[in-house]
Structures are given as C-alpha cells and as structure tokens.
C-alpha cells in the first residue's frame, strides 16, 4: 500500500488554517475563566487575520489539496464578504442576550465555524468538499439560531431551520449522488468533462442530479419555492445572527452556485438556464408581495431577502462574466445595506419594548436621527433608488441580464422593485412621518415585546458605538459606492473574471 501524501500549498490554505486555529482558541477561551471576556476580541482578531491572508492571496488562482479547493478571486471576494458580515455580527452581538445564554466562547466559536464553512464552500470544487463545507456552514447556524433559549421563537426557528435545512441537504446529497453516478467523478472539472462526453450530455441521470443539487443550493440561497424557512428563521433568530445569515449565507451559497453550475454543469447550460430564470422570477414575486404589510422588520427583511436573492440569481442565470461580476457587486452592496438596517433594528430592539416591530422605529427621525439616517439610506438602497449602491447593483445586474438576452427577467426585477417600494418606504414613513409612540394602525402586539420572556431593555443602546458605528459606516459605504462605484466595480470584475 503505497501512500503519496498530497502536496499542500500552505500559503493557499493559510486563511482556512487561521480560521480553524482561531476557532479552537476562542473555544478554549470559554474554558479558562480569565479569557472568557476576550472571546469577541479574539474572534475579531481571527477574522482580521483571515481577511488579511485572503487579501494577501488576492489575484491567486490555484488548486489546493489535490483539487479539493480552488482559491481564486471569486472565492476570496465572497469569503471577504462573509468575514465582514461576521465581524459586524460580533459587534452587534455585544451585550446580546443570546450570547449570554450560549456562552460567549461557544457562540463566537460557532460563528467562526460557520465562517469557515463559507470560506470552504466558496472555494469548494469537489462534491465531497462542497457537501461538508455546506454542513459546516449550516450546522453552526442551526445552533446559533436557537441560542436565545429564553425565547420560544428562537428555539422554534432553530428546529425549523434544522429540519428543513437537513431536508435540503439530503436532497442536495441525493442530487450529488446522481451526478457522481452519471459522471463517475466528484471533482467539478471531472464532472464537466464527463458531461461534455458524448452520450452523457442531457442524460436523465445527470439532469436529475442537477435538479436536486440545484434545489439544495436554492434552498440555502432562499430562492422560492424553497424559501419558506427564511422569514420564520430570520424573525426567530437573534438579530445579529439574522444579519449575518441574511448576507453571508447567500454569499457563500451563490459562490458555490456559480462555481458548481458554471464550472461543473456548464455543458448543460441550455437546460438549467431557463429553469433558474423561472425560479428567479418566482422568488422576486413571492419575496416582494410577501414582504408587504409585515409588522416585524426582521420578517420583512427576510421576505425582501428572498426577492433580493431572486435578483441575484439573475447574475447566475446568464452564466457570463458580467453576470458573475454583477452578482458579486450586488452581494457586496447588499452586505452594506443589510448591515445598516439590522444594526438599527438591533439597537431599537434593545432600547424599546416593541422588539423588532415596525413600531420600534416610529418617530425615529426626531428621536434618534443618527439611527434614522442609516435605516433610511438602507431602505432606499434596498429599493434600488439612485445615489446608493443598491441602484448601481441593480443597474449592473440588469445590464448583465440584457446582454445575456434575459431582458424579460430584467423587467421582472424592475416590476419587483416597484412593489418593494411599498414596504421599504413604509419603514421610512414610519420613521419620518409618524410621531414616536403613536401606535401604527392595525399593528399586532410586537412579538418580542409582548411575550413575558422579553429581553432586558437598554434605553441607551442607540448610542452605543458598537451599534451606531456599524450602522453609520455601512450607510456611508452604501452612499459612497452609490456615488463612486468604480472601486467596487473593479473588485467585482476581478471576482467575476475568475471563472471565465
């Protein structure tokens, strides 16, 4: 039995190593009392290191660990987005009750684990790696969602996420099995070659594989009709986690979506393109109409997330460099907008008895302008109004779609955006056009506020640097990249060019 050890490019996997190591350290910190407080700091440190190493690797384009991973600008950019969201999540989690219940060390360790999963997923180019990475991403999230053990909603969301999520991954696995069977390979390139071979192209086995695997991914990216977990989980989970999930999970999912479908399943383009296009359209509609008239902001953002996922899927549908770039750009922009929004929601959750109900932000403009502006900008950006990164993102996507002859999908995006205005502007109206305290007509008692296990109220939360800071910075970034988008565009173009 001759064993040839695989060549290991340590530079390439350094970010992964960093994250893993950091994970362990943070976990240990939970054990040693003196270190317990330092978990957040350590986490941030880890993330910073990983980010640094990733940036160091920027421009690389290599296979790692016998083609288990591929490190390229797409992977790096996505990982960076994930890490950014994780870092901000750490900030938002300061004083978060959930942290107290889970234990700071464990909480942050799990967070890091999820990030690790995302980084791996973004680089995966092998079915096995892909599957494992996906689970490393998901399982910590199942747990994190449930960490606010005091609140029934939290546990419920955890369980729902676990059940439906596992169903999703089972489906994904089954699809992978079929692909493996059809092509006899687990590597993306191998699959691509096999499919391209005569006799395999368009074989039902392969196509079913694509279908099931596609479902698994669509589920993670919360594409309708595989979206239903999204609103519930977003609402139930601790808000910082929601903010992390909302962007990072999508980012990772879309990264592998792109790599898997373009690299591995490229030869079957003709078959899966229209299917994905339809899914995108459906999500746009479902997400946007679902978000109408939601009282819970988190829920509303959940639905809007579905719609946004629909927009982004467009970037994959066209399977072009422009598409990929636009997707990355949109994800980056989305990160900023969402962060701004969620940071404010967290702050209001802690300083008002209304929880995440829209009532919590009524009269915010007069009460806390410094929170009102970020939320306003976030809403306008999500609605894709000009002078925000959101507008440029939509513009980018639409351009890619039109170039890819999917103009009808572009029109869908436009129509969806119109609908979305109804609920985004509703929030703006609540902030600017309603006196504080005045109950919104027909407002159901806010879920968190009403229930006895209400989290402690911190009337000063809105002034805390770790909440106001991220909100303001993210909002500023949203506007900045709306006015001077070129840097972000180049970033996205690099990422997009990695695959084509």
């Amino acid at each position, binding site marked *: 039995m001759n064993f040839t050890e695989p060549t290991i490019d340590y530079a390439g996997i350094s970010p992964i190593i960093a994250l893993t190591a950091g994970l362990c350290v943070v976990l240990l910190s939970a054990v040693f009392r003196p270190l317990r407080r330092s978990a957040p700091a350590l986490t941030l440190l880890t993330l910073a290191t990983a980010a640094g190493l990733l940036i160091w690797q920027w421009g690389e384009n290599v296979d790692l660990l016998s083609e288990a991973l591929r490190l390229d600008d797409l992977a790096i950019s996505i990982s960076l987005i994930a890490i950014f969201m994780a870092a901000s999540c750490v900030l938002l989690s300061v004083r978060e009750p959930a942290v107290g219940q889970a234990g700071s060390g464990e909480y942050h360790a799990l967070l890091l684990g999820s990030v690790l999963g995302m980084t791996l997923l973004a680089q995966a180019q092998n079915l096995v790696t892909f*599957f494992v990475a996906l689970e490393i991403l998901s*399982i910590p999230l*199942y747990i994190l969602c449930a960490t606010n053990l005091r609140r029934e909603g939290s*546990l419920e969301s955890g*369980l729902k996420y676990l059940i439906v999520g596992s169903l999703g991954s089972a489906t994904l696995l089954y699809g992978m099995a079929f692909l493996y*069977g059809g092509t006899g390979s687990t590597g993306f390139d191998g699959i691509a070659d096999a499919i391209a071979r005569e006799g395999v192209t368009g074989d039902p086995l392969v196509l079913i594989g694509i279908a099931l695997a596609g479902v698994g991914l669509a589920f993670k990216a919360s594409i309708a009709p595989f979206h239903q977990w999204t*609103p519930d989980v977003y609402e139930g989970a601790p808000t910082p986690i929601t903010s992390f999930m909302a962007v990072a999970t999508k980012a990772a999912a879309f990264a592998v979506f792109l790599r898997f479908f373009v690299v591995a399943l490229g030869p079957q383009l003709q078959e899966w393109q229209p299917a994905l296009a339809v899914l995108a359209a459906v999500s746009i509609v479902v997400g946007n109409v679902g978000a109408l008239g939601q009282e819970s902001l988190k829920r509303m953002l959940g639905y809007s997330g579905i719609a946004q996922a629909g927009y982004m899927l467009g970037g994959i549908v066209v399977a072009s460099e422009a598409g990929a770039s636009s997707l990355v750009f949109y994800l980056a922009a989305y990160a900023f907008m969402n962060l701004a929004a969620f940071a404010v929601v967290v702050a209001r959750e802690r300083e008002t008895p209304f929880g995440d109900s829209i009532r919590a932000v009524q009269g915010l403009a007069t009460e806390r302008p410094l929170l009102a502006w970020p939320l306003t900008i976030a809403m306008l950006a999500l609605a894709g109004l000009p002078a925000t990164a959101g507008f440029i993102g939509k513009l980018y996507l639409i351009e890619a779609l039109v170039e890819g002859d999917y103009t009808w999908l572009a029109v869908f995006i436009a129509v969806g955006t119109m609908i979305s205005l109804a609920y985004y502007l509703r929030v703006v109206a609540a902030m600017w056009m309603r006196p504080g305290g005045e109950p919104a007509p027909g407002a159901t008692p806010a879920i968190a506020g009403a229930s006895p296990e209400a989290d402690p109220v911190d009337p000063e939360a809105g002034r805390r640097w770790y909440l106001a800071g991220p909100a303001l910075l993210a909002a500023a970034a949203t506007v900045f990249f709306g006015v001077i988008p070129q840097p972000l565009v180049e970033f996205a173009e690099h990422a997009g060019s990695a695959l084509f």
Partner: protein
Amino acid sequence: MNVEWYIVLSALLFCTGAVGILIRRSPMVILLCLELMLNAGNLALVAFSRMVGNQEGQVFAIVVMVVAACEVVVGLGLLVALFRRKLPLNVDELRELRG
C-alpha cells in the same frame, strides 16, 4: 444484481423518508426520517461507486455518515432544549412564527 435495482431501492427509501417528514409530528421521528433520506443517498453513492468502479463514492458515503451524525446530535440537542423549556415536542405546536 444490476445497479439499477440498488438505485431504485434507494429512491424508494429516499421518498419514504421524505413522506415521513411530511406526515410525522414528533421532531424525534422527523430526525429519523432525515436519517433515512441520508442513508438512501449513501446507498446510491455506494452503488454508483460500484458501478463506475472508483471508491470516491464510498468515501463520500463515510463523510455523509459523519454529517448525519452531526445533524442528529444537534437535532437531539434541540429536542432536549425544547424539553427543558417545557415546550411541546410536536412540530405542529411550534408555530409562533408564521405569516
């Protein structure tokens, strides 16, 4: 014995598990059903690996087992947590989040 048989069998098991998830309310049983589905996947993987004559499928299967184990652990952990909070062990009664 032809590979087709194995695959069809696995498909049957897969669907059984799926149906189970749809009709059972006890989260416990639902976890079991998930196991069923994953195992169905495993069966397919192993069968295919036999068919194409490389062992990657088997390795995959092993990894899947690990994953399955992890899901179980987490799932059971959630069950316990629910139990501690005196919450009903019935997914139908956990529907505070909806709409």
